[in-house]
């Protein structure tokens, strides 16, 4: 008697604990339930596997960039050795994040080769006209202009191609424009020689609006040794017609001359500005990229999911309806077929629900739609164990055993087949959790946790509650445990 009550108090204690946990540590909702964006970033490596060091190096750069972007409550985690998942809750636009994160941001400082001035000037002009064509093209795309406009762009592009003695094989006009621009950029960078000053020598980056116009410029602050290198480089080309190019990811974003007054010491002070006609947005993106440093390996955004906040709350509501109606109908089915026993299983099911949710907030498990479906599915599986036990109890009762005896041996004899039966489901869950994607992991986690907890609730909890019930004489009538029509047989 004492031991039985001990279990009962233990269950009540667990229930109170669960309620306490759920009130104080609310459940974490996935993006499909609260709205937001999720980006999957993939490290690109041509040969071999991404090593742990490389993964960490890329991780720290991405982390810095995300922090500098100032997105609130973002969450970055690695996935499967060469991927990252970035979550941006709420209505934050993934576009900016994708632009900032997708670039390598390799910053180089190069000096112009001697005797290439005329060559550079033509290329600079060609770059300017290509940029204009691209602008015209996006303008033409937005406004529903007639096709003549596009034809003009096409003809202009052909002229440039002829000048360059290079033609694009791309079929798409936009693709052609981009390809030619890349070609010109490459030709320009080829006119410059690498120096040993690079993005690694930066200690900070900032931005400010230019005084004379509305453009923005980006400020670079070098480390001590970087400042010295910069002075050295500027000294070497001061007063000559060689230019200094600042090159980002292979594209020259600024070419500037160094005045004669710096010929003796170079530009000292350890800072420089890039004024490449940035918009406020572009300047900020560049600032964030430079602050975070360049990526040791390029990354690509391979997946983007965006869910509106309204849809998220709708999903919560729908899942709630599904879970509650599932619970109610399973309850009705059980009480209809097993009467008092069914009622016991309903109480165990409610306990089961609370324990499950408490475990989610404890671990914590982030609830997603697949996760909820795992939970709902596990409701049905949790009852399975009870059905096995109840069927055994009924058989014992039919065989003419007493109620107490039937209950005891029912639980005992069903034990092994219940544990056995759940093993295969657990096996599937483990495989899914280990090999599955993020999306799938949620389902495997909730189903797996559910199956484990159901072993406790449907064995221990049901038994304790049933024993508690049978201490009342009025609840000990055999026919409360068997359907009436069968009992008369």
């Amino acid at each position, binding site marked *: 008697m004492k031991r039985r009550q001990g279990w009962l108090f233990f269950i009540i204690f667990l229930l109170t604990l669960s309620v306490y946990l759920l009130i104080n540590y609310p459940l974490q909702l996935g993006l499909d339930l609260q*709205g937001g964006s999720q980006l999957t970033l*993939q490290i690109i490596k041509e040969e071999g596997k991404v090593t742990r060091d490389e993964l960490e190096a890329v991780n720290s750069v991405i982390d810095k960039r995300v922090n500098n972007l100032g997105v609130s409550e973002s969450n970055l985690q690695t996935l499967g050795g060469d991927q990252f998942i970035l979550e941006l809750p709420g*209505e934050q636009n*993934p*576009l900016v994040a*994708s632009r900032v994160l997708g670039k390598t941001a390799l910053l180089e400082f190069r000096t112009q080769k001697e005797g290439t001035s005329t060559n550079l000037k033509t290329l600079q002009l060609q770059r300017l006209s290509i940029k204009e064509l691209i602008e015209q093209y996006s303008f033409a*795309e937005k406004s*529903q202009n007639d096709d003549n406009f*596009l034809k003009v762009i096409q003809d202009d592009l052909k002229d440039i191609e002829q000048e360059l003695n290079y033609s694009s094989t791309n*079929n798409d006009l*936009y693709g052609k424009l981009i390809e030619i621009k890349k070609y010109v950029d490459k030709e320009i960078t080829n006119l410059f020689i690498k120096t040993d000053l690079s993005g690694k020598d930066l200690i900070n980056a900032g931005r400010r609006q230019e005084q004379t116009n509305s453009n923005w410029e980006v400020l670079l602050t070098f480390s001590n040794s970087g400042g010295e290198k910069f002075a050295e480089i500027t000294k070497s080309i001061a007063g000559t017609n060689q230019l200094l190019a600042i090159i980002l990811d292979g594209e020259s974003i600024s070419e500037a001359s160094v005045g004669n007054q710096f010929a003796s010491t170079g530009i000292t002070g350890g800072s420089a500005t890039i004024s490449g006609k940035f918009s406020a947005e572009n300047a900020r993106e560049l600032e964030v990229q430079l602050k975070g440093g360049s990526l040791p390996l390029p990354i*690509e*955004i*391979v*997946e*983007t*999911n*965006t*869910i*509106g*906040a*309204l849809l998220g709350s*709708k999903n919560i509501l*729908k*899942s709630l*309806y599904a*879970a509650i*109606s*599932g*619970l109610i*109908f*399973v309850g009705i089915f059980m009480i209809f*077929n097993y009467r008092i026993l069914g009622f016991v299983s309903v109480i165990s099911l409610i306990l089961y629900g609370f324990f499950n949710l408490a475990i989610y907030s404890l671990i914590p498990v982030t609830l997603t*739609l*697949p996760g909820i*479906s795992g939970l709902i*599915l596990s*409701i*049905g*599986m949790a*009852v*399975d164990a009870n*059905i096995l036990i109840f*069927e055994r109890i009924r058989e014992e009762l039919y065989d003419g055993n007493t109620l107490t005896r039937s209950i005891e041996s029912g639980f005992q004899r069903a034990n092994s*087949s219940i544990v*056995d*039966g759940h093993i*295969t*489901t*657990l*096996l*599937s869950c483990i*495989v*899914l959790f280990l*090999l*599955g994607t993020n999306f*799938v992991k949620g*389902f495997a986690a909730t*189903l797996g946790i559910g199956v484990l907890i159901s072993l406790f609730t449907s064995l221990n909890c049901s038994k304790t509650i049933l024993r508690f019930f049978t201490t009342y004489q009025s609840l000990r009538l055999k026919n409360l445990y068997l359907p009436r029509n*069968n009992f008369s047989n």
Partner: protein
Amino acid sequence: MKYNLELIKNKKKIIGFSTILIFFSLLGILYSTFNTSYKKPINLGMDFVGGNELRIERVCEAECSNLPPDSVLENLREISKNNKNFNNIKLQFQNNNKLISIRTPYLSIEESNNLISNLDNIVGPLNYESKDSRLIGPKLGKRLLTNCVTSLLVSLFAISLYITIRFDKKYALFALLALFHDLFIVFGIFSWLGIILSVEVNSLFAVSLLTIAGYSVNDTVVIFDRIRENLKSKKEGHNETIQLSVNESFRRTTFTSITTLIPLLSLILFGSYTLFWFSLALSLGIIVGSYSSILLAPSLLLKD
């Protein structure tokens, strides 16, 4: 309550029925592989081939006006000239013209945003709070596919290993046969759904196959256990004992399947559209699984 399933009498019918089911599944898979535009045994969805899927609601005063999808598409193409990705675009109105759902090949976030703002110009205003957009690169898709296939194979292997250790050879063989029967039929049904209704399978479908595998073996294990138990205390002949065991565990097996089907049914009826085909696949798997556990697997054990 005594059940009386005449297993011995109906052995041929049961095996015949399963053969027909397998045949139709095979037919669907073959037809799908050779005679469809996608030339795959099953219509692989965006998760596996990459692409862009967008669902967004329109803001309408009372009822949303009826717009022919073709003209909307034409407008979209008109606006975004020369973008090849837009030639292969699918657009549907659902939910009384309120909900727009669009599929395109893979787009960058930028292109996708352009698409949405173009759409806003044509059929807007749109409710951005209701947006559901998924962009999956083709590289990731391939990876997900291998990932899912490996998961399936690994877990089938683990389950087979467990069954072989737990039962003697004959029982293990028939339990596994029943399992592959279930998976094959669910796969076949989705092949047909792909052919007829162009239903696509995504990674959740692989998850449902795995869950079905775990669950359906479970049912077979319980019935085989009962058969073994009864054969030890043999009172009647071999075949009669098997039939008796099946009838003894019939109630238990159908009941557990029903209690699992009830929550799945409520997911189908009330749950999010994301989970619709997933819940359906699971339900089908559980129905086929109970059938094979109760009727097919024990029938295979019967001696002639």
